[in-house]
């Protein structure tokens, strides 16, 4: 047996203090297998040891919340006795090392989190961040990573049969060595059919189902808890390989098995595999679990207990079944052609006891692993930022040309090349798919619909993490309101650098607090999520990037979409022209794309006003007053107007303002929504009732977008000249 030495402890990324704690909890030094088990369970990825203290600041309860954080996914009430489970999770590190499989297994992992609760997944969205495709040094690699990630997501989701209905894709140099791949999934089920990951009932059998265990993914969770170095490529074998067909079988078999009533508890084997599922189920059930590893189906010969316990082979589940009813469950798994084996049983001693051919190789109190992981209040200073407060003097020579360049930039261009690779229609619920402000799905079981969107803004958060996080919440809720949905709950994925650096820890805490303030204000409690730290390569951290997913409720109706629909409609700007100044302009896409600079501060946000604007637009959309509806965000008013025009109907816009033209057209102040309507008076009445400014800014017209400021022509362009560069930008950048 391998001796546990200080070097071995360090190699497991456990500190001396943590090791002492392990010895104290066990009352003896751990065995090699136990050391491995502790190292994954106490890794940042599984234990949230740096963030747990601060995550408590997030609001988690609300009138729609049935299940807050702590389970595999959050659950909200959608009415008529039905509920949805949803969560977002990161797969950043694996996607950098092996983009295709890293992203594919990211999808697989979050889908299992959803159906392990008994819900059938009906939607996936992805928030992706890469280095620029035209980066002089890293461009070729960034292109390869993007292509791999997109085809990995497509491969897994398409085959599994879940529609990928939306998301975001953003490019910044800080993601050159550390892309972000955050996957959101949502599933629907009956409220009386919710399953939990609890091991209950003494001597109930513990059943292993799904794929066989191999050596893939060993220490994936610890890998995700360390910075990248030059040696990280050697960790490629740590990335798991996904089999979406197997997952589909597992889905159908698990949901069918749950119908029998013989399943007491169920947990997927994700990060930290068999280790995590056994000790979490025991810990939550207040019980122990004893397993015999020799019975675990294995893909390779000669696997050690250490390897079996730490394997992250995909598409595996652990069930606790009512004793005496095993055969009912086995029969279903046989029908779907899956392995199902009783590997152990529930015990009353609160211990995770692992045997290998009868010999005890690990014996640890479940609670020690799952609930008594270290908790750190890590020191923090001021959030890291090197950007200046004030920017360069500049004056645009050609505002129309600037607009065209913005539309052809990575963040704003058409992402069709990505989302057409995803089956976004399967299950025939997609009322509004990718490319809009939010995705809309009808729920066949209730007749109502759900809207959902993902949002994050690393630039804003880098300049001011608190304000950036608040803006992300506001924008995500605005996206939902724009299509007429009431935002009711959220999930978050917090992508940050190394928390052991005080300036990074400060970013994390500021962002969590900002997100908490905004989620409380917009009444969208966080029901779960994921923290991904150590997103650094060679000491360079990514921008602090909290990504938010918000789910909203709405009636089922034909969707109100972004594009202007006909000539001669009134174009109205709900919320007004907004404000900006020299400093706030430094965080815009204009500063990024046209000036190639980053300075200053994110836009200002008046959360009360924002909330009123959102309430107003919901009312306008629900009353069918709006023919089109689109929020003003990245790129500002001019980009939003162009986006509304891309299907061929443009507009003649006449503005009255004291702002300088660059600010007026391109500032990114929040709380603004563009609508087109044939009924301006009722729109005005709704806006007035909510105390919200609404401006008549022009009329739609075919084929051309013109924007004037007090009669002076600022932008004048045929729609085709906006559309072509927007449409072709991503593909031409991918060609290199």
């Amino acid at each position, binding site marked *: 047996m391998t001796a546990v030495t200080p070097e071995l402890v360090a190699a497991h990324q456990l500190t001396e203090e943590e090791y002492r704690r392990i010895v104290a909890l066990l009352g003896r030094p751990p065995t090699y297998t136990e050391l491995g088990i502790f190292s994954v369970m106490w890794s940042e990825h599984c234990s949230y040891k740096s963030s747990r203290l601060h995550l408590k600041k997030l609001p988690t309860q609300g009138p729609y919340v049935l299940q807050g954080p702590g389970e595999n996914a959050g659950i909200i009430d959608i009415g008529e006795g039905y509920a949805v489970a949803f969560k977002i999770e990161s797969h950043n590190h694996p996607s950098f090392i092996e983009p295709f499989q890293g992203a594919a297994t990211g999808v697989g992992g979050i889908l299992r989190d959803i159906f392990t609760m008994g819900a059938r997944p009906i939607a996936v969205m992805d928030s992706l961040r890469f280095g620029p495709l035209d980066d002089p040094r890293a461009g070729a690699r960034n292109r390869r990573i993007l292509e791999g990630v997109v*085809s990995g997501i*497509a491969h897994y989701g*398409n*085959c*599994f*049969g879940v529609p990928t209905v939306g998301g975001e894709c953003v490019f910044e140099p800080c993601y050159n060595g550390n892309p972000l791949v955050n996957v959101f999934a949502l599933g629907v089920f009956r409220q009386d059919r919710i399953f939990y990951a609890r091991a209950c009932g003494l001597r109930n059998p513990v059943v292993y189902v799904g794929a066989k265990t191999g050596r893939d993914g060993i220490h994936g969770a610890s890998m995700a808890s360390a910075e990248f170095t030059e040696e990280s490529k050697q960790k490629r074998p740590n990335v798991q390989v996904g*089999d*979406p*067909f*197997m997952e*589909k*079988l597992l889905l*159908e078999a698990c949901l069918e098995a749950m119908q029998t009533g013989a399943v007491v508890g169920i947990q997927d084997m994700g990060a930290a595999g068999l280790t995590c599922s056994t000790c979490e189920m025991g810990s939550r059930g207040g019980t122990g679990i004893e397993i015999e590893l020799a019975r675990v189906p294995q893909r390779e010969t000669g696997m050690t207990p250490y390897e079996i316990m730490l394997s992250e082979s995909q598409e595996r589940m652990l069930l606790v079944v009512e004793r005496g009813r095993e055969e009912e469950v086995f029969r279903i798994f046989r029908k*779907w*052609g899956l392995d199902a084996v009783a590997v152990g049983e529930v015990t009353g001693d609160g211990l995770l006891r692992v045997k290998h051919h009868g010999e005890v190789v690990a014996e640890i109190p479940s609670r020690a692993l799952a609930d008594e992981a270290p908790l750190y209040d890590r020191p923090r200073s001021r959030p890291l930022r090197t950007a200046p407060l004030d920017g360069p003097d500049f004056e645009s020579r050609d505002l129309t040309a600037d607009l065209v360049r913005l539309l052809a930039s990575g963040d704003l261009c058409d992402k069709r090349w990505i*989302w*057409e*690779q*995803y*089956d*976004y*229609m*399967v*299950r*025939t619920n*997609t*009322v509004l798919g990718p490319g809009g402000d939010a995705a809309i799905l*009808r729920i*066949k079981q209730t007749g109502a619909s759900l809207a959902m969107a993902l949002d994050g803004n690393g630039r804003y958060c880098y300049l001011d993490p608190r304000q950036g996080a608040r803006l992300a919440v506001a924008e995500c809720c605005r996206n939902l309101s724009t299509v007429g949905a009431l935002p009711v709950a959220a999930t978050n994925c917090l992508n940050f650098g190394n928390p052991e650096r005080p300036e990074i820890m400060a970013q994390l805490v500021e962002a969590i607090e900002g997100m908490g303030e905004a989620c409380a204000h917009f009444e969208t409690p966080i029901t779960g999520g994921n923290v991904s730290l150590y997103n650094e390569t060679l000491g360079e951290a990514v921008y602090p990037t909290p990504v938010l997913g918000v789910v909203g409720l709405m009636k*089922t109706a*034909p969707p109100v979409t972004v594009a202007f629909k006909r000539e001669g409609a009134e174009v109205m700007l709900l919320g007004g022209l907004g404000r900006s100044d020299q400093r706030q302009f430094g965080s815009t896409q204009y500063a990024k794309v046209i000036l190639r600079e980053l300075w200053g501060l994110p836009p200002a946000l008046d959360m009360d006003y924002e909330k009123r604007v959102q309430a107003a637009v919901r009312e306008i959309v629900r009353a069918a007053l709006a023919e089109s509806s689109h929020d003003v965000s990245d790129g500002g008013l001019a980009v939003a107007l162009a986006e509304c025009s891309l299907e061929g109907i443009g507009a003649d816009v006449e503005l009255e303002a004291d702002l300088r033209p660059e600010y007026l057209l391109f500032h990114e102040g929040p709380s603004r929504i563009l609508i087109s309507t044939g009924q301006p008076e009722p729109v005005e009445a709704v806006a007035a009732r909510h105390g919200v400014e609404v401006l008549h800014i022009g009329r739609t017209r075919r084929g051309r977008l013109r924007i004037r400021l007090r009669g002076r022509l600022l932008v004048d362009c045929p729609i085709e000249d906006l559309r072509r560069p927007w449409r072709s930008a991503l593909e031409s950048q991918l060609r290199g």
Partner: protein
Amino acid sequence: MKFGVVVFPGSNCDHDAWWAISHNLGRPAEFIWHDSESLGGVDAVILPGGFSYGDYLRCGAIAKFSRVMRAVERFARDGGLVLGICNGFQILVECGLLPGALIRNRGLKFICRQVELRVETADSPFSCHLRPGQILRVPIAHGEGCYFADARTLAELEAEDRVVFRYLDNPNGSLNDIAGILNAGRNVLGMMPHPERAADPLMGSTDGLLVFQSMVAALSHAR
């Protein structure tokens, strides 16, 4: 009149087809498990989209050997209506119930998109409610939907008026822009586009419903 929807373990449009038939078309539909030897007395069979047995090999290559396909082959030989959608089309081709092959899309990428189809013939139980030249909006979602056949087979399909749908703007490189073809007996149709996804106004088109309505009309007429 009853529709049967075959369920392979990796089918994922089975429920969509069932929903379109039972809710949008308003006709009875039931599922047929891939292991069944019988089709349970249905009047028409739908082989739905998906990834029958994972399709890591060639799409439909394993489904060809499934028990239910023996029953489907007998049913088709006896003149029963068989509609293969997407993966169902791939399976029909693998089984030899339809000629040719479906290979990787020209662009080598999976494509999900609303496309336009031109109806080429009304002379089939699947298109008798349509008129030649009519344009339908029906989505596609496939990675291997490029229809390929040798010149003689193509000539035969054209000469015998067995091309039912053609793409207006060919998305995948299919020869002769073929989106859907009939067997010689005209009772088996394979098509890559998904009519079950265009059966509800909420999904943006109801043109797919016309295919199912044609089947209903043909079956009623045959009675």
